[in-house]
């Protein structure tokens, strides 16, 4: 499939590139695939045509945006990949699994080919709380909780959503929820190149969110957080990731922890934290998750070497949840969990549903599940949360 490069090169201002290589240099997948973003930019500049069919590696990009964060000439290399994917999408040349996910989002509002009406099932055991929240959203609430597709449907991640609800209640927050009206935020949709679908989601979701009129929206997933904050154009609403909200509640004293995760002998649980790309690198939220972990009694926080700005992408973003990529054998997640294990940590804490799934899978495959457990921060919080809400019945 041939692409005439001139127009896109001009629109994306690729001529700003000086071919310094900082983008490819820092690209996590460049080491294991033929994806070379610098080279792609160069070809766009010097060739008049590009044959997209010979670039299967375009689907390897995880949209971690390390290249965008580091480019000294503000070229935004990853946007080229997204634009090229867009061409492929329009030409109908996409991996089947991505096509399926996109179609599912279009039809059922989630990528997992699950029915829309099953979206509320995550609230098992907390149905009343959810109903209350849905009513609050109708009436107008201060805080809207956007659950997200993966936390809603994936039963490994559903406990995270439930734990969050319990936190909201514990802190006495006026929280609303959209229920089965909630539809995929589209962050991955844009990054997979499906511009039309993304624009539709922005319009429809945007309207729905504005109608609720909440002052704040809090998300489970950094992906939803990222797109609402940076791409939706909701200037009157404060968009928060749950770590930001919780850190704030802790600071204000509206949330307290009781109990301890330490063993009976008093041995603290050693926890290391993995910065998700969409929370850390892209939105500079580094300190709040750590503040929460440190506030949990009986926990010792150790840092991996590649933390914060240098956190190693789990390879879950950019559509990679739905496509294997060109190199199945070496997974970055393997390297990552090994690094976590090497810190001597008992728990690898995450704050993103994609990281949770990919890293946990890596732990299993690498046979590290005896020594290292992958948990979302909410799952840790849930264990020490002081609950005083009468109608919440716990599952975890």
């Amino acid at each position, binding site marked *: 499939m041939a692409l005439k490069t001139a127009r896109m090169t001009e629109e994306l201002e690729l001529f700003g590139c000086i071919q*310094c*290589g900082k*983008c490819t*240099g*820092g*690209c996590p997948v460049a080491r294991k695939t033929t994806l*070379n973003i610098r080279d792609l930019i160069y070809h766009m500049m010097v060739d008049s045509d590009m044959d997209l069919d010979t670039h299967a590696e375009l689907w390897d990009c995880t949209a971690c945006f390390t290249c965008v964060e*580091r480019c000294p000439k503000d070229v935004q290399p990853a946007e080229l990949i997204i634009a090229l994917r867009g061409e492929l999408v329009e030409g109908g040349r996409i991996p089947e699994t991505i096509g399926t996910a996109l179609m599912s989002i279009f039809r059922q509002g989630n990528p997992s080919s699950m029915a829309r009406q099953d979206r509320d099932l995550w609230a098992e055991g907390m149905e009343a709380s959810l109903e209350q929240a849905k009513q609050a959203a109708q009436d107008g609430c201060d805080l809207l909780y956007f659950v997200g597709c993966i936390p809603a449907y994936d039963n490994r991640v559903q406990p995270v959503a439930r734990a969050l609800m319990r936190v909201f209640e514990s802190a006495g927050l006026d929280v609303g929820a959209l229920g089965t009206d909630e539809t995929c935020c589209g962050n991955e949709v844009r990054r997979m190149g499906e511009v039309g679908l993304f624009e539709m989601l922005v319009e429809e979701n945007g309207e729905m969110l504005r109608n609720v009129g909440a002052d704040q929206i809090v998300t489970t997933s950094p992906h939803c957080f990222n797109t609402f904050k940076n791409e939706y154009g909701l200037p009157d609403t404060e968009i928060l990731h749950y770590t930001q909200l919780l850190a704030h509640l802790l600071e204000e004293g509206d949330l307290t922890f009781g109990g301890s995760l330490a063993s009976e002998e008093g041995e603290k649980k050693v926890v290391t934290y993995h910065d998700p790309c969409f929370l850390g690198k892209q939105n500079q939220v580094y300190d709040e998750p750590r503040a929460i972990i440190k506030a949990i009694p009986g926990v010792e926080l150790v840092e991996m070497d590649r933390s*914060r700005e240098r956190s190693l992408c789990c390879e879950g973003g950019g559509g990679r949840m739905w496509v294997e990529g060109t190199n199945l054998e070496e997974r970055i997640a393997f390297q990552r969990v090994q690094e976590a294990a090497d810190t001597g940590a008992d728990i690898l804490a995450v704050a993103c549903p994609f990281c949770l799934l990919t890293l946990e899978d890596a732990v299993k495959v690498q046979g590290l599940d005896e020594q290292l457990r992958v948990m979302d921060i909410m799952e840790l919080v849930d264990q020490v949360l002081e609950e005083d809400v009468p109608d919440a019945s716990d599952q975890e």
Partner: protein
Amino acid sequence: MEQEPRIGVYICHCGVNIAATVEVEEVAAAAADLPGVVVSRDYTYMCSDPGQALIKEDIRAYGLNRVVVASCSPRMHEPTFRAASEQAGVNPYQVEMANIREQCSWVHKDKRQATEKANLLVASAVAKAVHLEALGDREVDVTPGALVIGGGIAGMAAALDVADTGLQAYLVEKADHLGGRVADLNRTFPTLESVSELLPPLIERVQNHPNITVFLNSEVAQVNGYVGNFEVSVTGAADGEAGELEEGTIKVGSIVVATGYDVFDPDRLPEFGYSDYPNVITSLEMEERLMEGDLTVNGRTPERVAFIQCVGSRDKQLGNPHCSRVCCMYTAKQSRLVREMLPDAEVTVFYIDVRTFGKGGEEFYDDARSKGVRYRRGNVSEIYRKPGEPERVILVAEDTLLGQPIDFEADLVVLAVGMEARESTSKISQLLKLPRSADGFFLEAHPKLRPVDTAMAGVFLAGCCQGPKDIPDTVAQAKAAASSALIPLIRGSVPVESATAVVSEELCAGCGMCVEVCPYEAPALDQLWRVSRINPVLCEGCGACAATCPSSAIRMQHFTAEQVLAQVDALISS
């Protein structure tokens, strides 16, 4: 206006530049009929000797007291015609020019319209000439001395040049020693001369020079006055050896600013782990180690040393889009010295471009490579610790010439940190009203033709405070600043704009609006008499105050309301 105006009008052909588009004879003939005009001529080249002779002869023969020349831009030849007229006895400020070249013949094609426009321009100039007044040329005396702010190599070089002519130089330095940043260096490129040989003799010469007074541990607190007559107050200790301050004030005629630069803080690029890893250091720290002769890190001699260029430079995202100019050379220097000290070490420089442009620079780069320094093209993305070998780090980069990402192991990493505008100079910037360019460094008056002058008369720039540069260019620029600073000091006086604004004290209401609007701080309210007085030396004749004054108390000499309105009348009534 005491005299009856007797105006001579001269229309220049400028070869064919004007005559090809404007009917110059016609314009001269039309001008002859204008009120006040006694004689009107046209000639091929008015600025030439014969052309000027025409003017002079007519002044004598016809008793002219005003001259109008319609020719090129006054920026070309106003001084010419003023001087010629003055020689024959007409006050130079009673000469007016009409620009019928740049503003007429050069920009229009239609001869008819161009000629008519030229007629209007000439009529307008003549109308103004009727009202022109004689003004005197003004010169102010100059205090024979220069202040140099900053005792680095730029400041010292400027001070020496001033002092060597026999004039007094005052050198104010914030730190407790002279030498600035060069004092922190080991060897200098491209000769590899040691700083310990280069700097002390220079410092000694400065300290022992009979015409230089050095103030260490001192800062400039206040600057008053104007070119030729600055009064500067300096706070801090005066170096007992070098002299004393009288009431803390120095009087000088010129000021040279040589305040240097700041070094980029590598923590602003956290992906390099500068604060995390002891084996990631800056180039300045490397200079120290090279001076001490000790390159051990983590207790071992490094086997693999890597240099990373452009740290904090050429980076729009950081807000430092500029090139820091010296890093390619100093990296070539350091890398080559490391190879000499550690012949078994692998030394690699990661670069984007190699900017070894100076005299001897390219040869120096060739030399470094011949000594075994490897140059790899790729801007390093991040550094992390090698798992299992914590004394080693891994540089994450792409070698763009191989087209492959690499994970490069190193024992010691040197960040070639760039130069930034010195933050502490915001105070000097305010005191001296020095504007800055987009990159934050001080702005010179014109990038090409006035590289050391500033918008403030009598204040000059030297060295890295104006922009990153190496020692040869710094010294050259410092000497250039000295030259500019010396001119008024050697002349003994400084010419001052004659066309300045004057306040009529009877009309002045003391409102102070003129003070607010003046960019040069020329007007000041006299607290006792409640009127504004304009310092004719500071006034640049921009006219903002005259336009603002609600009491019409301010007269803009050479551009009075009377004159300008006469011009407008001439333009619209024809």
